[in-house]
């Protein structure tokens, strides 16, 4: 058997990979229609957030006291709030805030949790015991209470909101990753890697982490949704992003309850935006789990 020279082999692999990956995406869409719907929802919101300056017809912060609490119309398709600000524009710019917070929290919290979880499983013994007790303590705090405390210490604003929401996500990720990594720790190729004299960081990063990526990626999609909900809750309590920044939770804190009976659109549209975005992430995350876990495929 002749071995292909590496560059040629790589080119053959690349050529074979492209149609397979496209076929994989089509296959995913066919097998997971709900997941595809979720992905489309997420992409629509992402595009709205990225292109807010071009999509929004008005500035999200400009008041118009002549048009306060106006119902939906051609001029303002989702109506205006108690300061005359266009709701559609604020929702579009709010998508940007939501995605920045959601992805930042999920990625930072997820990656930190991934490293801690795998390291805890790999080293085991006292390191695992101490780390798990520390994570237990942090996990025992309800997410909103931990976020409250961090905001109280460091103040509001987007960066501190991200910090406040990221901290409770870390132990949750570490726990799940650790349970997957514990199984991988005992497989022969890890022993082989140790026998070859590879360092701890190489074994963890090159041999263990790639094998826990499936549950990690699924958790990441759930974390983005949770982070968006947490940000909305904090903003609703007045502890998150501050006015006049457009944020969905902040829009619900403002006039939603006060004008609930006279201008219900102030409460309805931001909530629908939050729900649809998190809904999209959840659908996609579920579909990803079904696709990646062979035990859950259709009988």
């Amino acid at each position, binding site marked *: 058997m002749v071995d292909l020279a590496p560059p040629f082999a790589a080119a053959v692999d690349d050529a074979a990979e492209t149609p397979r990956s496209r076929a994989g995406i089509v296959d995913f869409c066919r097998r997971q229609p*709900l997941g595809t719907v979720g992905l489309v929802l997420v992409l629509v919101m992402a595009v709205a957030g990225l292109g807010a300056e071009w999509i929004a017809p008005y500035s999200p912060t400009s008041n118009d006291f002549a048009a306060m609490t106006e119902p939906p119309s051609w001029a303002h398709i989702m109506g205006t709030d108690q300061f005359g600000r266009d709701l559609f524009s604020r929702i579009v710019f709010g998508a940007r805030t939501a995605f920045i917070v959601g992805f930042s929290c999920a990625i930072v919290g997820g990656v930190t949790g991934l490293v801690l979880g795998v390291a805890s499983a790999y080293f085991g013994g006292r390191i695992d015991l101490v780390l798990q*007790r*520390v994570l*237990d*303590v*942090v996990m*025992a*705090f*309800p*997410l*909103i*209470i931990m976020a*409250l*405390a*961090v905001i*109280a*210490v460091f103040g509001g604003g987007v960066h501190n909101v991200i910090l406040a929401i990221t901290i409770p996500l870390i132990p949750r990720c570490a726990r799940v990753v650790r349970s997957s990594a514990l199984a991988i720790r005992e497989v022969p190729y890890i022993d082989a890697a140790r026998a070859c004299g590879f360092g701890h960081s190489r074994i963890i990063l090159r041999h263990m982490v790639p094998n826990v990526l499936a549950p990690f990626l699924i958790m990441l999609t759930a974390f983005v*949704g949770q982070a968006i*909900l947490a940000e*909305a*809750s904090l903003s*609703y*309590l007045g502890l998150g992003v501050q006015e006049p920044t457009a944020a969905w*939770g902040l829009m*619900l804190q403002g006039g*939603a*309850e006060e004008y*609930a*009976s006279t201008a*219900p659109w102030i*409460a*309805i549209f*931001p*909530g629908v935006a*939050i*729900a*649809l*975005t*998190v*809904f999209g992430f*959840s*659908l996609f995350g*579920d579909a990803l789990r079904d696709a990646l876990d062979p*035990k*859950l495929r*259709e*009988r």
Partner: protein
Amino acid sequence: MHRYIVNRVVLVIPTLVGAAALVFLLMRLIPGDICAIRLGSGGAMADPRAIAICHAELGLDRSVIVQFLDFAWGFFRLDFGISMWSGKPVAEEIAARLPISLEIAMMATVIAILIAIPLGTISALKQNSWIDHVVRTAAIAGISMPSFWLGIVSILVVLDVTHALFGAPWMPPIDYVPFWQDPLRNLSMVILPALTVGYRYAAVSMRMTRSTMLEVLREDYIRTARAKGLVEKIVINRHALKNALLPVVTLIGIEFAFLISGLVVTEQVFNINGVGRLFVLAVQNQDYTLTQALVMLTVVTFVFVNLAVDLLYAWLDPRIRFG
């Protein structure tokens, strides 16, 4: 089994000490001074001597280590001290608000169990059918909607529906009356928040039930049970459900433990004077003793609910025996 329980209780101690240290540290990191807040104007106009007297009264003039040891010792004696803001005993402040939060949490749990387990099971049995899609969509919608928004919308719907039916809008009462004094008034106050929280709770549990049922239904012993000719109902109820319920029980337990003090936004929406709102006020007022007590209440509830859940495992699955 007794040794297991003792071991678990002993293991709780480092968690409690760690949580106590964390909340103690967090509270002291918050900028500001409760004495300055109490004396008004952020303390800008307050006499430094008055602030010093206040510090001495509250024990804040002692070293941080002494304050922590005093707090920890008080906690183990179940003496939570005096609220630095209101001056009332912390136990009294919490006791006044705990019944309503507990009632809402328990009602939400019952609603969640009644909805989640049957629907999650049916969804698993009919995987990828229209029933499964509907149930999954409802579950995902439940975890996607912010609970405070659901609360606002439910209030709106109740207002509009009652206005349309009876000519006048109806709002739930805002003053709490215990169930045994006036069941109807009590239920009319807690039913909306319980349904709001219960729906989300049910959604999370439903997804877990479906997931675990799907895994269990693929096990060899289920195939064996069917091959033996057992009726499907017996296969599901006697063989599949008990095993599938183990992680669901854990989830329900953990969610309940967090619910007690996690009803922050729900209580805000429905204007309920519960433990969640007390938490927010305590943090905002930098009431160290009250915040510390509330956090420890949550942590203790969490660890002991976990222990109760583990013991329940042994009942659900006789193979599980803790040495």
